[in-house]
């Protein structure tokens, strides 16, 4: 009855080439940087965690949709703070997509003894870089 449970299913895996970031930490650059920052870090981290390509594409897609939503808000609404708020909200939503796909693989990696890498510097750079990039595009289309 337990034949299936007691048959081998494990293949040796190479340890990850780069240590992953804690997916929960991406919330900060997502808040400050917006949807593109969240998606970029999500895709980079997904590669470190070796999540399936389909999920990476979904994260990237969520980032583009999030930015599109922000763009729409910018075209429809006058107020600057609404556009800023839309960036934050869309960033957090994209982060939720990242978290949904990466929480489990990250915890499994931890079980394998993989430690998280600090996101402070790459997070800051991505948040500032892509935050400014989004702001620039928004300024151009308005």
């Amino acid at each position: 009855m337990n034949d299936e449970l007691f048959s081998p299913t494990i293949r040796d895996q190479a340890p990850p080439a780069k240590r992953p970031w804690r997916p929960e930490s991406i919330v900060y650059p997502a808040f400050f940087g917006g949807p593109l920052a969240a998606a970029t870090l999500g895709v980079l981290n997904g590669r470190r965690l070796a999540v399936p390509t389909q999920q990476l594409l979904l994260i990237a897609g969520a980032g583009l949709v999030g930015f599109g939503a922000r763009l729409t808000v910018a075209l429809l609404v006058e107020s600057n703070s609404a556009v800023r708020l839309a960036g934050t909200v869309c960033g957090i939503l994209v982060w939720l997509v990242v978290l949904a796909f990466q929480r489990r693989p990250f915890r499994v990696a931890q079980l394998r003894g993989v430690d998280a890498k600090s996101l402070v510097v790459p997070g800051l750079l991505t948040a500032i870089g892509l935050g400014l990039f989004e702001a620039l595009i928004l300024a151009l289309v308005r």
Partner: protein
Amino acid sequence: MTSPQPVLHRAQALLATGRAGQALTELATLPANEVTGSWAMQLRCAALSQLDRWAEVGDAARAGLAANGPDPDLLLWLGRAEHEAGRDQAAERALLDGLALAPNDADLLCSYADLCAANGQLDKAGKLVELAAAREPHAPVVYATRIQIAHARGDDREAQRISREFVGVHPDNPVAHALLGGTSAARGHIDTAYEGFRQAAAARPTEQVFAESALELRVARHPLMLPLRPVLRFGALKTWLVAVAGILLLRAIGLPVLAGLLGFAWLIFCVYSWVVPPLVRKRVRRGWS
């Protein structure tokens, strides 16, 4: 000639209190023909594993298997050692060989479950630990493995619930307290978490991990970390949603200035939550060592 039995009992007692080095010294007094006995080798493996000398655990298990033939307990140690060395396929072979001899052994089932979980096979791991739980529902290893798997699934609430049960059934077990500490920390119950690790570290002062975690929780309890309690307690997402909802609400009821102020305060708070924890950690660590 020394009789092996008292030596082995003494070594076992030393291991139970976490004095692995002394247990090894005790085992070294065994006569040459007793050293490779199955029980002596198991104790040696247990002592070496407590000292984190996993390569030697593997060697000892192999030597024991060569001397005694197939033995589920030694295969268990071989499996664990191979897993520690990152050779998971070899680990699986050893554990399955052990399970072929002892299909109901809770330790073997749990080790195999751990191995599957570490390879992302959480469903199989869950089924294996269920089998183990059906045999020995209150064995510490069964509790610990169930907690690990719940945590890996992302089910923090369930992990904490099992930890509480574990502590209730085994109030003297340091691992139970440490796991309650860890699972409480994951849910932001900082005080319970600190208490768990403090008790674990007090019960087994030789275990570096317990002391490390107690220290980490001391950081979380630092006065400068007090503003971050809501985030730790309710999770980042809920806290953020409340803040964003608050800002939107103030704006909707026609108080844009207040909304702006709240937004600004929230921004400061976020920067604070990003910058302050590493600084506090450095400070507490300096005071600690």
